[in-house]
């Protein structure tokens, strides 16, 4: 499965179409293009999305940004992420205002980035 880079980022950035679903109610779901960020330890979701999906907080992390600068605490929750027709329960923190796919999910995928063609391919489904 292939995705075109999002040209709203400058330079264009790799994104993956993701459906995020509530664990309590599978009818509650959002489909968004998530930024692929191998630098992020964990997946980030905007608070408004977590709220809309009824995500129950399950844990608290200290968040460190560039150069380890503390960005404060953030609660996490567990939700279902559907990528390339494969569903997986994963943890995400309520942080920022866009969906960032961090390594807790990316490390389960085999991705190929074709920069010149601005194309990201998932080579095969999640484990």
């Amino acid at each position, binding site marked *: 499965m292939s995705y*075109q880079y*999002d*040209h*709203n980022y*400058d330079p*264009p950035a790799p994104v993956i179409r993701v459906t995020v679903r509530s*664990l*309590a109610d599978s009818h509650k779901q959002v489909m*968004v*293009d998530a*930024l692929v*960020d191998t*630098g*992020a*330890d*964990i997946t*980030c979701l905007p608070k408004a999305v977590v*709220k809309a999906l009824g995500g*129950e*907080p*399950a*844990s*608290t*992390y*200290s*968040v*460190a*940004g*560039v*150069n*380890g*600068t503390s*960005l*404060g*605490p*953030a*609660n996490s929750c*567990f939700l279902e992420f559907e990528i390339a027709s494969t569903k997986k*329960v*994963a*943890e995400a*923190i309520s*942080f*920022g*205002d*866009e969906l*960032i796919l*961090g390594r807790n999910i990316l490390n389960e995928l085999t991705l190929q980035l074709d920069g010149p*063609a601005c*194309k990201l391919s998932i080579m095969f489904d999640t484990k």
Partner: protein
Amino acid sequence: MILVDEEIKEAVNSGEVELSDFSKECLQPASYDLRVGEEGFVLSAGRVINIQTEGPLEIQPGDFALIMTHEKLRLPTNIVGRFGLRSMYARMGLLATAGPQVDPGFEGKLVIGVVNFSSQTVRMPYLTPFCTLELERLSRHSSVAYGGPYQGQEHLTDELTKMLPKEPFPLAVMLIRQLAAVSPSLRHLETLTLPRQLGIFEQEREAFERLKPELLKTHRGQYVVVRGGKAVLFGQDKTKLARQAYEQFGYGPLYIGLVEKARETVHIPTPRASRRMA
């Protein structure tokens, strides 16, 4: 019959349909993505913008823009076209305005009007796929081909732009600006409900901190689920533990903590995210 990807490719290869600079990357299961062309027009700027040389077309909240497609299209008299905005742009708050169809026999570049109903500026870079074209084969050839004023259009002309209103839609601009102005208050209202929702979670987290000194002696390095003020489950894999807890107790408030002295830290060195949190 709507053409599927292979039929679109065959129609283009045989010359039945012309889609200039055809790219298989733009083929969708039953449509073809059209890209942002060289020319655009934004009402607030009041002039035709060369997107290729001047950079992405920037559509301000409430503003109206015309975007000419990169592709030149030519349809035979037995095929009709319909197009719509790609969903990612619809989700960003753009609304496309266009006639009901691309008539059989049309030849030229398409011009799509878009209104930005979001409170954010939307940027449309050159050659970005922004709308998708569906082609439908008719039961027979139409008796006449399209012969209207847009036949053969390849540029945004004065005739085209002078028909537009003189300034961005005032009502849309006013509504979007007012909503943007009150949104901080709405966010404040949202937070008022959080203490109730987070109450149990906060209690469980405090219980975890209270239990931690003892847990460090017995379960150091493991994850623990705290529910009802008690440590109820332990495990090495946090996600598996969460699933187990939700299966056992239902999807509700609990706290899952790592039995270590310091709180878990995650690194999000994405400058965009850091800037937005600052």
